[in-house]
């Protein structure tokens, strides 16, 4: 098992702090009527995305879902560009065209959020295939949910990845719910990684609220992929504490269950692990820095202009009448 350095822990803790602040800010803006469309917060799940992406090189790739904020930030996207995109601003990393569910940045290796449930899975396999054809040592990492695990493309993609030993890491972010539907109403098995055997790949269960545990599992899986030994499925058990999206009317998640998971807040777990290593004042300083950064980013995002429409003339144009 890889031993984490203090620096690595600190970096991940900082990223988690930022993501949490972003999520909370989005919640506030939503309540104030300043957002548009449902936004999928990942409060409580930050450790999965931050821990797993920390195992990647900048040249590696990720694909993610409608709930990708932690993955975007973990893979190195600038928080201003992401936040501005979520707010539909001209400064957004996709000019406001894509929105929170479809952020992509080829340079950064982010081949997209994806709002078609399951679609992040073949997307990652396709990138891995490309790496295999080109004989690079790039790895592609796929985030997907327990709901997505029931889609047909999940099966097809894992079978192909196992068959061709593609350099891909499948990170199942098991937060117990599809949209409003509990996992027990989506699948007769609670531990979905037991399906990995059917694709001749290792399936590992990891505490998704412990960033260090996620990181360690990801480091192993990434190494395996990079060596050419093929894919791994990591099932990270976690929980969605703020509901499906900002337009979620709630009522289907058990209050006690939420309370139980809130006690296992990934930020708290990370804090507790760092406390003996760097002490409370350093942790406080990190929290203050993050809050300051977020405040300034927020101000800038809110002040940024909305985009102006330009007619799209793609390579296969047929836009004649608007």
């Amino acid at each position: 098992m890889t031993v984490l350095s203090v620096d690595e822990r600190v970096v991940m803790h900082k990223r988690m702090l930022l993501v949490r602040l972003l999520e909370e800010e989005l919640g506030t803006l939503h309540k104030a009527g300043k957002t548009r469309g449902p936004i999928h917060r990942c409060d409580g799940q930050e450790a999965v995305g931050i821990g797993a992406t920390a195992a990647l090189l900048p040249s590696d790739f990720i694909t993610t879902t409608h709930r990708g904020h932690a993955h975007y930030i973990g893979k190195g996207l600038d928080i201003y560009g992401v936040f501005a995109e979520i707010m539909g601003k001209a400064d957004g990393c996709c000019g406001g065209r894509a929105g929170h569910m479809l952020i992509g940045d080829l340079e950064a290796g982010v081949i997209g959020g994806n709002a078609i449930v399951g679609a992040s899975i073949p997307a990652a396999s396709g990138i891995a295939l490309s790496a295999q054809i080109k004989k690079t040592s790039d790895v592609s990492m796929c985030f997907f949910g327990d709901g997505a695990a029931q889609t047909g493309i999940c099966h097809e993609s894992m079978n192909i990845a196992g068959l061709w030993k593609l350099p891909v890491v499948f990170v199942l972010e098991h937060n117990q719910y599809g949209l409003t539907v509990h996992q027990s109403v989506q699948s007769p098995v609670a531990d979905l990684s037991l399906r990995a055997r059917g694709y001749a790949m290792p399936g590992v269960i990891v505490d998704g609220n412990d960033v260090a545990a996620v990181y360690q599992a990801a480091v192993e899986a990434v190494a395996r992929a990079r060596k050419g030994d093929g894919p791994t499925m990591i099932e990270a058990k976690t929980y969605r504490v703020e509901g499906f999206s900002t337009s979620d009317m709630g009522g289907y998640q058990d209050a006690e269950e939420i309370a139980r998971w809130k006690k296992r807040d990934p930020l708290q777990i990370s804090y507790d692990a760092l406390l003996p290593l760097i002490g409370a004042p350093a942790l406080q300083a990190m929290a203050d820095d993050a809050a300051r950064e977020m405040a300034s980013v927020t101000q800038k995002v809110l002040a940024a202009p909305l985009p102006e429409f330009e007619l799209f003339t793609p390579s296969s144009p047929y836009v004649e009448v608007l």
Partner: protein
Amino acid sequence: MTMMRYAEALNQALREEMHRDPSVFLFGEDIARYGGVFKVTRGLMDEFGASRVRDTPISEQTLAAMAVTAAMTGTRPVLEIMYADFVPLVLDALINQAAIYEYLWQGVQMPFVLRTQGGGGAGAGAQHSKALDSLVAHIPGIKVVAPVTPADAKGLLKAAIRDSQPVVMLEHKLLYNQRAEVPDDLDFTVEIGKARTVVEGRDVSIFATSRMVLESQKAAELLARDGISAEVIDLRTLRPLDLPAIKASIAKTHNAVVVNEGWRFCGYAAELSATIMDHAFHELDSPVARVTLPDMPVPYSEPLETAVLPNAEKIAAAARLTLS
């Protein structure tokens, strides 16, 4: 008559038909415990139980295929597909399965309804804002309806459930909160295949579908200010088309605008234009104008999305063009 929202009218239709016929059942993602993301199925699981109102895994392709054979073996499934953007996932079940059996195995009944909702205007982005009407309307043997008013929503859904063959119902996310009077009669249905004249006019016919009917109505008001009398026809059923209604209107106005929120190329508006070419060419004083989404993804940010969606101004401009 009772005043209610479009979503409530659909809910009432489902409830009434489930009471009437025990073989009717509902399934789809998040429709049971939560009552559906647009709340169309609210309360029905409590009323009819978890066997007849089922939450499903995220498996559109399989759910649609299951509806086909469940319908062939004695039940009347009503499947909700959360967004019309997911129609590609159910298309094999429609094109390669549902479309063929009535012909191949003559005598077969396939009474299922696939409800979905499409269209833009809610900031849902490129994968949750499309109207893919032409994909489903292309399929023989499948009826396609797209109600605009709460009364039509109720009446067409009841007719669809009672139909002996597959019906796809295209709803629109921006229509669910529309309120209007809805008949209470338990046997109220709206005949599939019949258009509805929304505004009578003399100078130009505007044939529209789904939410675009509301924009066309506004366009008629804009045109009226210029002294142009536009007739607005809500097609209501996209397939089979109400040809007599289309022909009669054009015989009166001699000019036509067709409006559909889907893409232009090979879109549903193309069929309307071609149908008019086939059946009313000699009545036309001007070419039929198509008003559609431009051929590009629906953008996320509000000013961008607003710029691409067809609206009253664009429809009125197209109508003026036909008369110029």
